[in-house]
């Protein structure tokens, strides 16, 4: 019996070591650069990290990220000036873009379509509108120099609070020894990514894990009552108004990027009445023959990002060009010097 247990433990250890080696060799694990909250209360990544974000069990999506000196995943450093035309895109993980090589991000695609423009992506997984407006307000010196702000709004998730408070708890949790160990043991990081750890968590909280999975592929449509939907819509609109009144919203150079298929008409009507610009990508996604999202999660794939970039460019061409000089973008500062085209 003792021999059996000892040999079993030994074999398990050797196999785990071998698996750790395989996971490291083939880079099956994903990297999550550390996060922090800066002196302005903005949650972001620690600058200077470069690594690979991996999706799926078998490296189905593999992309490099680069955290710039401002703490965001981008190929470019953020240095807005009064001369050039700069666009800031503020949003959550869709904008952060860990699912796409940072040298081929939505921002780079826009820059390729509109030479001379610089795109600053202030993307961070988990941002909602409170985070976004707080960030714009906190970095107002920079944003005053930026000519166009695009806020990506995931209507169903991003309007659930009326005020911003920095999430120190989450940062502390991610810096805790448990998470540090997870980040150092790549096998642990890998099994955590593919969902095996969720089963253990389920067991720890006493849930019957298998029961919840039954029919997971088939019954993923939730039916919501009209009453509940209306209540949520009015709460979201109230939250939007409160956040805007607290942090301000420069309608002259801010547009909201959203998917009207997932956005309530109440909110769309409000934006229309208030004169808030909307960049809707629903139609181009709907018309696309190719898939627009990744296979393994709901984030946009390369094609989806190309469509998003095209929508933003179309918006700029229709709304921010000088009528007297077609194709020439209007900066928010009427600098007499021409905008460089290359």
């Amino acid at each position: 019996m003792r021999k059996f247990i000892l040999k079993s433990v030994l074999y398990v250890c050797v196999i785990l070591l071998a698996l750790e080696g395989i996971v490291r060799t083939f880079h099956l694990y994903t990297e999550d650069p550390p996060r922090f909250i800066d002196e302005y209360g903005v949650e972001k990544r620690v600058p200077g990290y470069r690594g690979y974000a991996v999706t799926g069990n078998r490296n189905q999506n593999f992309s490099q990220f680069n955290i710039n000196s401002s703490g965001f995943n981008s190929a470019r450093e953020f240095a807005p000036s009064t001369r050039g035309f700069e666009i800031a895109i503020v949003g959550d993980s869709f904008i952060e873009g860990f699912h796409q090589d940072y040298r081929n991000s939505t921002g780079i695609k826009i820059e390729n379509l509109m030479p001379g423009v610089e795109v600053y992506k202030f993307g961070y997984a988990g941002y909602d509108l409170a985070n976004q407006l707080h960030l714009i307000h906190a970095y107002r010196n920079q944003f005053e120099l930026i000519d166009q702000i695009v806020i990506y709004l995931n209507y169903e998730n991003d309007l659930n609070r009326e005020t911003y408070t920095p999430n120190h708890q989450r940062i502390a949790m991610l810096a805790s020894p448990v998470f540090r160990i997870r980040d150092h043991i790549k096998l642990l990081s890998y099994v955590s990514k593919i969902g095996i750890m969720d089963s253990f968590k389920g067991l720890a909280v006493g849930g019957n894990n298998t029961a919840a999975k039954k029919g997971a592929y088939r019954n993923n449509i939730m039916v919501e009552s009209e009453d509940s939907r209306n209540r949520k819509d009015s709460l979201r609109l109230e939250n939007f108004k409160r956040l805007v009144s607290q942090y301000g919203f420069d309608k002259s150079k801010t547009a909201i990027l959203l998917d009207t298929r997932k956005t309530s008409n109440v909110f769309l009507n409000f934006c229309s009445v208030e004169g808030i610009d909307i960049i809707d990508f629903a139609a181009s996604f709907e018309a696309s023959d190719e898939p627009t999202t990744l296979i393994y999660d709901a984030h946009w794939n390369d094609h989806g990002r190309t469509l998003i970039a095209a929508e933003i460019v179309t918006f700029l061409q229709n709304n921010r060009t000088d009528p007297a000089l077609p194709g020439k973008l209007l900066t928010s500062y009427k600098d007499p010097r021409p905008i460089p085209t290359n």
Partner: protein
Amino acid sequence: MLFNSIEFLVFLPTVFLLYWTVFNKNQKYQNILIIIASYLFYGWWDWRFLLLILLSTMVDYYVGQRIYSHQDKQKKARYWLWASMAFNLGLLGVFKYYNFFIDSFVDMVSQAGYQMRSVWTLQIILPVGISFYTFQTMSYSFDIYYKKLEPTRNLISFIAFVSFFPQLVAGPIERASNLLSQIDKKRSFTYEQGSSGIKLILWGLFKKLVIADSLAPIVDDIFANYASYPASTLIMGVCLFSFQVYGDFSGYTDIAIGTAKLFGIELMSNFKFPNFSRNIAEYWQRWHVSLSTWFRHYLYIPLGGSRVTKYKSLRNICIIFLVSGLWHGANWTFIIWGALHALFYIPVFLMGRNRTYADNVIAENTYLPSLKELLQVAVTFGLVAFSRIFFRSQSVTDAFSYINRIFTDFTFSSYVHPLGYRMFDFYLLIALFTVYEYLIRKDERNPFKFNSRYTRLFVYTVLVMGILLFYDDGINRSFIYFQF
């Protein structure tokens, strides 16, 4: 509780350690622990079903004594045997077949032009594994009746025999002469048995989690949307289903046998690489062996088997396969599946080749199979896969429509995985799995028969890595045969 759940990962080592430490004093304590563990294991689904299994156990324990006490009065013994059968088949009848027969009757009457609404059907759930444990308890009564076994006087042993958790819900269906005799004896732990058990568990988990579970979304998609797929995809769908159901059921069996070994108990083999069968008869000697054995001992032989006239032998074969179909499920699809197998079996039987491959495997004395063997395997696999269209389809109409498309829309187009995964991964997986099974084809109880310790370690690592590479968090992990 599922073998492939995290709950079982905690449950098994706990029971194992208690069994060989705290309860190791004598066999009675060990059997009590087996009963507690088994009832916990089974009650994890729905505790109300425990009453059913307890009732079944008590009835057969009592009936077994009665049959034995009337051994010299054959008529009375037969009455008690009938009582056992009536009770067990009654349970199956109510929980599994009642609605099917009512609905079939209503359909038949409707076909005759009479309108009738089915108001007698029951709203009941099918208890997990009911067909398995009722057959096991029936075998106990049969063996006593046929004087092959003396009834046990030890109720604890008998409860442990009926409820032994590794094989309770999906077999192997054990005969009392094998399992009860082991439960009645003192067990002692041996390193070889324990290590062999762990290896079988690993191999079974691989087959279930990697082969069966990763193919499930593909098969589900193809069978649900067969009307929009060309023949090439439909053929692929049914071939993949063959691998899925094999991985699922034989994976379960390996885990069951491996788990039983950890408790010092040897269960019978249930699968002997059926995908390498050279004719249908060999297939049935390799697929779900415990069920085939049960039917042979308790139905085919009592009916006269093959020692009667040719006509009666053919009748017996048809009965066996039709009952086997019905055993699988209360649906005409299963009955047609059974009928097809009877149809495939009869020519082999008439040619006298039904025992030709009983004692040998493909490429018995060579490294590679001959061209003839390869052809035989391909034909057998094709026939079995074809019959599985009925086994997998929701209704007979669906099955015929599926077949109709195969023969009328013979076009080829590449298949796209419903979740977008690269299909090449799955083709490669199936190819490697088949090659590996071929390499180990001579011993189903020892999937890692390599002399070198390093080779074994390499294979273990590859299997665990395979489980991680194909693990899918969003899948329903239940076993297909639990529904039977």
